[in-house]
């Protein structure tokens, strides 16, 4: 198999091709889609999902699912928001470590329930999805944190930066992606996450501390949700107890699944997930241009998840078939 062919057969190439085809198709109808300005818009739609998707990718690779990331995003954003509002001396940057810490703690909570009681992650996080969302209301007394209370320096992160005018938030998102790549491919515990998802039965027999690795993965998912939370405040300028983070989990799962991570664990790449996020970003950006109302976004995400599952399945079958033919 030539190098070119082996690259092309990879999932990531397929997504890249889909992105290009999609953009060309939209560009044919609305040429303004293919401008740098549009690229900026697309990229701006993605940083929160990108960050969340990195965490979710690790969770899915470990053979779990985390449905509570949207609610964790909400709580961490709200905690920082409340602090900004009521604590006069709070520096503008303090929200970042605080939100990350809050998220990590909530994620750890998920992890503890899952490991201590041996419960399926999907149901636990379905429960914490509500529980944490409720917490958001309680902390904020059901009131929104309005624009004037969010520090302008924080908001500036999403507007610009000295580097070609690209907002810091995009660098942060890609930075998280790079860190995730290093974690997943070049640290021992990162590889253990993949091993755990690939064969959970064998993992303890080979010296992997399953409980600790699982806790770590959920804590990371929470921490990244927390980061996404404070960046939500940065991007949108307010924090609302019912909206902030609502529906986040579905967009993130859609991106991760499109990106080629397998629900059965053990398989997933950062590059694929990034491309998945970008594809969703292109779709989201194209909708208003094509005159499709924003209310259809949810439907499209749902359809996208299903289509990704279908593609995933046929690719896997093909992959096995071609492996067999190659005499492997």
């Amino acid at each position, binding site marked *: 198999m030539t190098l070119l062919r082996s690259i092309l057969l990879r999932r990531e190439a397929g997504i890249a091709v889909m992105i290009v085809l999609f953009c060309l198709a939209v560009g044919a109808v609305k040429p303004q889609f293919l401008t740098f300005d549009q690229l900026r818009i697309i990229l701006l739609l993605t940083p929160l999902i990108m960050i969340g998707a990195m965490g979710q990718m690790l969770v899915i690779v470990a053979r779990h699912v985390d449905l509570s990331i949207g609610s964790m995003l909400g709580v961490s954003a709200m905690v920082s928001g409340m602090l900004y509002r009521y604590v006069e001396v709070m520096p503008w940057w303090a929200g970042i470590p605080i939100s990350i810490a809050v998220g990590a703690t909530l994620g750890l909570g998920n992890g503890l329930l899952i490991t201590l009681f041996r419960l399926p992650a999907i149901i636990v996080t379905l429960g914490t999805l*509500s529980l944490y*969302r409720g917490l958001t209301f309680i902390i904020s007394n059901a009131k929104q944190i309005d624009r004037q209370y969010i520090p302008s320096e924080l908001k500036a992160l999403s507007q610009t930066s000295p580097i070609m005018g690209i907002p810091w938030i995009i660098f942060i998102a890609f930075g998280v992606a790079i860190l995730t790549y290093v974690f997943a491919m070049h640290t021992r515990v990162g590889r253990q996450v993949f091993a755990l998802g690939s064969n959970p039965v064998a993992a303890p027999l080979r010296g992997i501390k399953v409980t600790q690795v699982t806790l770590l993965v959920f804590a990371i998912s929470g921490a990244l949700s927390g980061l996404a939370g404070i960046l939500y405040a940065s991007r949108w300028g307010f924090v609302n107890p019912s909206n902030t983070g609502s529906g986040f989990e579905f967009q993130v799962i859609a991106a991760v699944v499109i990106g080629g991570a397998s629900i059965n664990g053990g398989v997933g790449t950062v590059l694929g997930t990034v491309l998945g996020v970008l594809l969703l970003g292109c779709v989201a950006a194209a909708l208003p241009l094509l005159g499709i109302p924003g209310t*259809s976004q949810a439907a499209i995400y749902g359809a996208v998840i299903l289509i990704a*599952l279908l593609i995933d399945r046929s690719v896997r079958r093909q992959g096995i078939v071609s492996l067999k033919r190659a005499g492997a």
Partner: protein
Amino acid sequence: MTPLDTPRPAETIAPSQQRWQTLLIRPEIMTFLLLVIGIFAGSLLSPFFLDVNYILKSFTLYSELAIVALILTMVIIAGEIDLSPAANMALSACLFAWAQASGIPMPVAIGIGLAAGLAMGALNAWMVISLQLPSIIVTIGTLTLYRGLAQVIAGDKSIRVPDWFIGVDKIMLAGVPLPVVMFVVLALVLAVVLGGTIFGRQIYQIGTNEVAARHAGIRSARIKFSLFLLIGVVAAIAGILTASRLGSVRYDLALGGELQMVLMAMLGGTYIFGGRGTILGTFLAAWLLVIVSTGMIVANVLPAVQLVVLGGLLIVAIIATNLIYSRTQR
């Protein structure tokens, strides 16, 4: 070189767990006890709790979800899960409401709603059973899709239904609101089906060990397919009932309902991994949930706190169910 003279204990009669233990330590008992405690606690909060009519009226608010939860219980026992019924309710209701608002005669509009529910169930069934995809992810995808389609159809508006159609919850049969009667009757029917028919027995067998079920000649694909179709249709019925109760339909009908349905099933002792659970358990759990929710409203608990309580209840329920089942596990 004689073989052992000591008896081989492994082959003697295996002592089974004490009969009374297996009979009493069951999740349904736990649910029942919680229900009794709940009523007691509720009565302390407000004298209304001991008023049967008040309880029945409160139940109507949850009756649609409870009806679907009964079918969901069977789906979970069979080893699958469906998170899309609440979204199904919304989409079916929106299609139904839009149809009749466009002048289509009511029976046809209802037919459209039901057909939509069936189609949604069929999509789930096809992807899970024919394509062998994991039901959890598929139904997350379809729940997003269906809710989104409901949004596309209804936008941000409410679609009204004709006045004569409103108020199914006001119809009383022997003093009991009609939806509650429907729930009880359905529960009775399903309890008989699940507990006394071969169809029900095979659902348990499939959920316990699908490979063994196939080898025994049980048509597991067919049975699971029919369960997904059934829950699709029942969700549509529930959606239309809700339309009658509320008087209008919005895209966010039953938003978050999937949590409550799963909660009813879990609180009722349904084992998330399949093979165990009862209609009785879910039946009791539905009442329990109504008591808890109503109690919180009466106690002026914030909606936010209610969410916390529900989420917490779900987690507690699965922990307890898991513990109980693992003790009787071999």
